């Protein structure tokens, strides 16, 4: 479906002087989209040109609109020689293609040059007229919303979570093309930037198509990465979670509707009853979305599934219901196994039951098994043939000498890994993997592919087409709702009813309950009864890659825990090298895991969230960095201490040494417990009955390296038969290890840190936020031992943290959230650590409250959040029942011939919703403008007498153009504020190069400027979309290369995030009265389509 792209070039400012003679510039602008180029007139002799051009119109396919960026080039006109380029602006059109996102791009955007950086700004207006046709959804994927946020975006509600989407595109890297030898660095950089823009656009479109095929309308947790494979090419890959989202009221429901809850439930319940016992298995309607119904074992869990049409085995799926998958006590053994089987098979039908989400709608995440990860070492092989040294000379070989076309090869690699992850999850008794992510580390021709996630059992709630609202209510008012369902069940399946009951009763601990079979534990584990509900088994330690569920009950506060490791390796080439690396990997992971475990114990905590293990490969070493947030889950048993045992007890001084160390460790644990306010309620009674496996330390970290075929080697990382918490000192290494353990300095007073979104135990956030990026590169001496390297690496990270605390001391009390460390080995003997995080201030008063109170608070909060979500449902439901043939109901039953995509069903409703959101946006704008006025008040405070206006002449260009403040945060929310609109994804890639490194302040000066410029460009683009913040911001790539001898450096940065409009909650309260009425209005006609 074609569309019309319109662009207008208004003005420029702060342009650089291009003509030395006149100290001025004769600037004009080229506007290019696809193959069409327009030019403005030359605006002579000015650094602040006012072009005020006509509207340049491009008539293009929406496929192009998705793939191509609008390219604006500012040039200096030169009569006698070639025109000099000042710089470029790439504008991503994508946000304009979605009706719910931005409508216009308008504002000052920095003009960027890859050699000189930002050179002035240009004011542009960009609009898109898409010919409005519902069918356009079929031809391209315009309209599919993308979110970097790894949770359901704040102003949306998940109707359905379809599952994993992935795609990758491959191209040659322009930097390695033969033409690069003759073109300028600028041309080469620009070719690269443009190519990556194109590739990301294409990737996004392809993913969008997959989403549409699945029946979704959005991708949440969209993670796009670049692999710069050097001569073998450039890979852009992305993963995400396809969802069907629906807009919800942007205003917090001020009052809940107690009267509404029961009628709607009554309306819904019969539907359940009718279909549940035995719906005939329909072979699926002949629509691209194949909806199937499976009769359910447990009646309340009717389940139907959608999958991509390419999934051929779909029609062969057996009748299965999705059980809750909970553990049902000791006597439910066989039944449980059966349930588990069903649960698994339900999700198994999906190619990959993976979810990139880390935060889930309430009730979605039932149980968490543990971390699953897989790594694989691959060789990016190429033919060394200088005679063929042109573009097409490379060929890819993977480790199995399996040759294929490039994308297929890469696809196959990832497929292998994903299969492995899937099987790991299965062995943990889980049918899904959540908090899933993928990464690579490349050094020369060796590439380590990694994937990790958390094995989990999910509720079928968001995976079926059934109405969610009733389901949602299940968790809210469990007792009354469930009565109907369980009665029916009791006859044949008593235990299953109690199963359902379990997940409802204990939202704070349910996810900790083991998903696997107690008698058939996949690894040695120590199970106890849950310390919250005392009914189900829990493990002693829980590692996950997801965020702490909001409903989880936590004792005390959390803290960042890092395990750091360096391993030297011999320089090698090709397969030998790859083999050496894959041999080292298990040890690396084992040690990281041990470190994590020990550090966790040292802090008196029992669970890790947001675990991210990064392994980076260099020519002579491997780096491992594991970061996670440790917490004390109330449901899990209290961790034991750490006991040190010496090997040679004969020596008295040695023993003394040991006991000293033991004392130190014990002191640290006590101190940490105080620091993090960990004082769990004392458990009086002993573990009730049930044979408990011998106490052993166990781990839930699965890994394997598949350098060959599909032999999946799982390495048990537990410490064999030793007691869980005993550290045996048999050599100096062990002593060093313990020292290292104790050298982690505690965070200074007033600081907390975590790598997750929220910090348990802290609520009262103020609006003060500070996002930052810090990069350090450390040069090592040659010939270091493993121990020496470890210490250096560990110190590097510790010092970096200390510096951050010092920098941010003015924000105390504050918490560093989402601390995201990235390590790299840019060249031999260099270690690069980059950190992006946000510091949030909070009010001290609240922190004095003990952990228990805060634990109680969270569930309440979750409920209110839910209530506000429910508000719409209730009204929708009323409609549903009266018309009785609502699309939602249909797809649930699966008997209607034309189950339509939910995105279409809700579009008009959403449109109406957005109309008053539009109003709100206007309001937000005026608010922003108001603040702008205050910023510029300094200029306006002293108005000149009229007659003296000439003195202002050089001021003119500045007046009234103060810069709007744009907040940036890696979190998915802004404390104290409500996100009222998502404007689209920000995904930007920049290259900066210099050949005057010293003059730009050395490497630090160069990178400092570049990062500041990247921030500035992100802010400017967000502001141009009408936004005032970027959430879920991340710097995914920061590749820095230097050559000080040549006075040169180059850096590539890739950042992404979601542009949003937020309104302070205090401002919202003022306006919340009118929208309330608007809400009812919109919902009245909401289902009209």
């Amino acid at each position: 479906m074609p569309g019309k792209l319109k662009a207008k070039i208004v003005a420029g400012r702060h342009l650089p002087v291009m003509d030395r003679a006149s100290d001025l510039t004769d600037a004009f602008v080229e506007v290019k989209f696809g193959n069409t180029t327009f030019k403005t007139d030359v605006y002579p002799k000015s650094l602040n040109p006012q072009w005020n051009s006509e509207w340049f119109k491009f008539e293009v396919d929406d496929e192009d609109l998705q793939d191509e960026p609008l390219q604006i080039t500012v040039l200096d006109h030169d009569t006698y020689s070639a025109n000099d380029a000042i710089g470029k602006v790439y504008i991503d059109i994508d946000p304009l293609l979605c009706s719910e996102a931005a409508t216009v791009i308008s504002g000052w955007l920095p003009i960027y040059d890859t050699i000189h950086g930002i050179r002035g700004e240009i004011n542009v207006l960009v609009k898109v007229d898409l010919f409005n046709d519902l069918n356009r959804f079929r031809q391209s994927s315009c309209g599919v919303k993308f979110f970097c946020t790894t949770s359901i975006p704040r102003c949306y509600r998940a109707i359905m979570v379809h599952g994993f989407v992935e795609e990758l595109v491959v191209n040659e890297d322009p930097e390695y093309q033969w033409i690069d030898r003759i073109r300028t660095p600028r041309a080469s950089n620009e070719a690269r930037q443009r190519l990556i823009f194109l590739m990301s656009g294409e990737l996004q479109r392809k993913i969008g198509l997959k989403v549409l095929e699945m029946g979704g309308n959005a991708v949440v947790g969209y993670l796009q990465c670049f692999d710069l494979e050097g001569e073998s090419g450039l890979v852009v890959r992305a993963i995400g979670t396809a969802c069907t989202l629906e807009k919800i009221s942007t205003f917090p429901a001020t009052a809940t509707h107690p009267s509404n809850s029961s009628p709607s439930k009554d309306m819904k319940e019969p539907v359940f009853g009718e279909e549940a016992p035995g719906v005939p298995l329909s072979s699926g309607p002949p629509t691209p979305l194949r909806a199937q119904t499976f009769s359910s074992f447990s009646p309340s869990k009717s389940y139907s599934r959608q999958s991509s049409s390419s999934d051929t085995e779909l029609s062969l799926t057996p009748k299965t219901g999705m059980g809750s998958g909970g553990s049902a006590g000791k006597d439910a053994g066989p039944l449980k196994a059966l349930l588990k089987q069903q649960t698994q098979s339900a999700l198994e039908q999906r190619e990959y039951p993976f979810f990139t989400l880390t935060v889930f709608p309430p009730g979605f995440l039932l149980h968490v098994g543990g971390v699953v990860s897989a790594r694989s070492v691959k060789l990016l092989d190429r033919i060394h043939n200088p005679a063929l040294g042109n573009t097409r000379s490379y060929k890819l070989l993977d480790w199995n000498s399996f040759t294929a076309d490039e994308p297929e090869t890469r696809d196959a690699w990832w497929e292998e890994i994903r299969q492995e992850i899937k099987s790991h999850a299965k062995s943990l008794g889980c049918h899904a993997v959540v908090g899933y992510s993928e990464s690579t580390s490349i050094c020369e021709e060796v590439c380590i592919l990694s994937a990790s996630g958390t094995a989990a059992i999910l509720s079928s709630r968001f995976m079926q087409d059934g109405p969610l609202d009733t389901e949602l209510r299940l968790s809210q008012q469990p007792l009354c709702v469930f009565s109907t369902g369980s009665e029916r069940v009791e006859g044949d399946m008593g235990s299953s009813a109690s199963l359902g009951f379990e997940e409802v009763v204990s939202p704070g601990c349910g996810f900790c309950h083991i998903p696997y079979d107690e008698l058939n534990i996949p690894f040695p584990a120590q199970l106890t009864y849950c310390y919250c509900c005392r009914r189900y088994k829990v493990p002693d330690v829980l590692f996950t890659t997801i965020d702490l569920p909001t409903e989880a009950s936590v004792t005390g506060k959390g803290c960042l825990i890092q395990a750091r490791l360096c391993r030297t390796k011999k320089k090698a080439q090709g397969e030998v090298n790859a083999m050496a690396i894959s041999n080292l990997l298990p040890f690396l992971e084992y040690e990281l895991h041990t470190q994590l475990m020990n550090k966790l114990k040292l802090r008196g905590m029992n669970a890790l969230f947001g675990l991210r293990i990064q392994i980076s490969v260099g020519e002579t070493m491997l780096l491992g960095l594991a970061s996670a947030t440790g917490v004390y889950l109330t449901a899990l048993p209290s961790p034991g201490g750490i006991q040190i045992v010496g090997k040679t007890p004969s020596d008295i001084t040695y023993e003394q040494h040991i006991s000293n160390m033991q004392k130190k460790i014990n002191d640290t644990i006590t101190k940490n417990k105080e620091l993090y306010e960990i004082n769990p309620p004392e458990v009086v009674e002993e573990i009730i009955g049930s044979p408990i496996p011998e106490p052993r330390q166990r781990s839930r970290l699965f890994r394997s390296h598949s350098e060959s075929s599909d032999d999946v080697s799982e390495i048990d990382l537990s410490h064999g038969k030793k007691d869980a918490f005993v550290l045996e000192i048999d050599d100096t290494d062990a002593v060093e290890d313990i020292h290292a353990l104790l050298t982690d300095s505690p965070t200074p007073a007033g600081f907390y840190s975590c790598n997750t979104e929220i910090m348990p135990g802290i609520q009262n956030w103020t609006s003060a936020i500070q996002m930052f990026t810090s990069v350090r590169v450390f040069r090592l001496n040659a010939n270091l031992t493993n121990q020496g390297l470890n210490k250096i690496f560990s110190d590097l990270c510790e010092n970096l943290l200390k510096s951050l605390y010092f920098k941010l001391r003015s924000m105390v009390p504050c918490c560093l959230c989402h601390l995201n460390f990235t390590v790299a080995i840019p060249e031999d003997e260099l270690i690069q650590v980059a950190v992006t995080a946000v510091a949030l201030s909070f009010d001290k008063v609240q922190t004095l409250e003990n952990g228990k109170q805060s634990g109680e608070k969270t569930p309440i909060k979750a409920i209110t959040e839910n209530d506000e979500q429910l508000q719409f449902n209730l009204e929708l439901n009323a409609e549903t029942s009266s018309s009785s043939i609502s699309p939602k109901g249909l797809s649930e039953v699966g008997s209607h011939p034309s189950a339509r995509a939910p995105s279409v069903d809700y579009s008009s409703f959403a449109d109406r919703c957005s109309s008053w959101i539009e109003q709100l946006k206007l309001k937000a704008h005026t608010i922003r403008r108001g603040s702008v006025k205050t910023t510029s008040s300094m200029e306006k405070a002293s108005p000149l007498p009229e007659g003296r206006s000439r003195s202002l002449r050089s001021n003119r260009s500045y007046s009234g153009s103060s810069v709007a403040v744009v907040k940036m945060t890696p979190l998915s929310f802004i404390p104290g504020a409500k996100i009222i609109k998502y404007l689209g994804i920000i995904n930007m890639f920049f290259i900066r190069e210099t050949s005057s490194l010293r003059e730009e302040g050395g490497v630090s000066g160069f990178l400092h400027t570049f990062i500041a410029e990247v921030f500035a460009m992100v802010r400017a683009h967000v502001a141009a979309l009408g936004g005032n913040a970027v959430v879920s911001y991340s710097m995914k790539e920061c590749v820095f290369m230097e050559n000080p001898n040549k006075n040169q450096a180059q850096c590539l940065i890739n950042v992404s995030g979601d542009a949003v409009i937020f309104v302070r909650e205090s401002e919202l309260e003022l306006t919340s009265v009118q929208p309330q009425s608007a809400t009812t209005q919109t919902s009245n006609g909401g289902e009209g389509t």
Partner: protein
Amino acid sequence: MSVELDVFVGNTTIMDKEVYQLWLNGYTVNDAVKVRIEGGVMEECEASAEVLLSDTMDQYRTFQMCERLLHHPAKLANQLLFQIPPDRQAMLIERYYAFDDLFVREVLGKKLSKGTKKDLDDVSTKTGITLKSCRRQFDNFKRVFKVVEELKGPLVENIRQHFLLPDQLARDYAAIVFFANNRFETGKKKLQYLTFQDFAFCAGQLINNWTLGAVDNMMEDMDVDLDKEFLQDLKDLKILITDKDLLDQHKSLVCTALRGKTNVYNEMEANFKNLSRGLVNIAAKLINAKDVRDFFIDLVEKFIEPCRSDKWTSIDMNLYLTHYTNSAHILDTFKHHAVWTRYMGVIKSCILRLYHD
């Protein structure tokens, strides 16, 4: 083993006021770290010297990057590179343009030329202010001078508009520009007792009363140059001392008015003719640019020093100048009332300011 690269970039640019001041003062990174360590920030925040060094380097780099914007403060408000809250911006600008009184006394009235800049190392040694800081201050003076030189309109207002400075600082810069433009001599030994604020006050008086801008506000350089016509007219005041009758009459009027009201009556009476000659001569000479330069020296030599040696108090001075000014209007043959008022108004307030008991 060394840190090769170390940067920290905040979405809101973090700037430490203390470090900023150290940077402005021209301290090297290492010196600044020393000062900070002595300041006790380390104990406060549980930091190490290493952390302090890293932070200081980082801040210095930020300031260096900001410096080019600070040269055109209006740009700071609408540049995109650094997100700095408005109050911070104001602080940055104000402190950047702040100067040391000690330093400004050294260059006040000097031509803001390359030659003067070359001598800054002497100034630095003399004042104990780092050369770097001297250069910044000097460059600030020069920059402000260059910008306002070409502008019409009131000087103070122009400076405030262009450099977004607070009122007092804008006035000080106006004084500096005014002094530099007219090349008033301020460095002589006799003037050493005067502070910059003394001169700034006088500059304010001169700008407001003796420049073209005081009469016509649409002229170029109106605030920077003295009103030539007025200076020409000042020659007419000579009659007060050349006409013997007028001088005697003037003296008797002042004496009558002051009798019994001051302790230094006798000295005053004895010195009247000298003092009056001094003031009127200054007025008559102002038409020569060279004598304009000596304005303050003349005031001190011809009037302030004699009075001081006679131990006049400020009150005596005020009383004398008031009556001296007013009496002239009663003189029958004296016609130049307007010029006299314009002249004496400034002279009186300047002398009162410059006269330190």
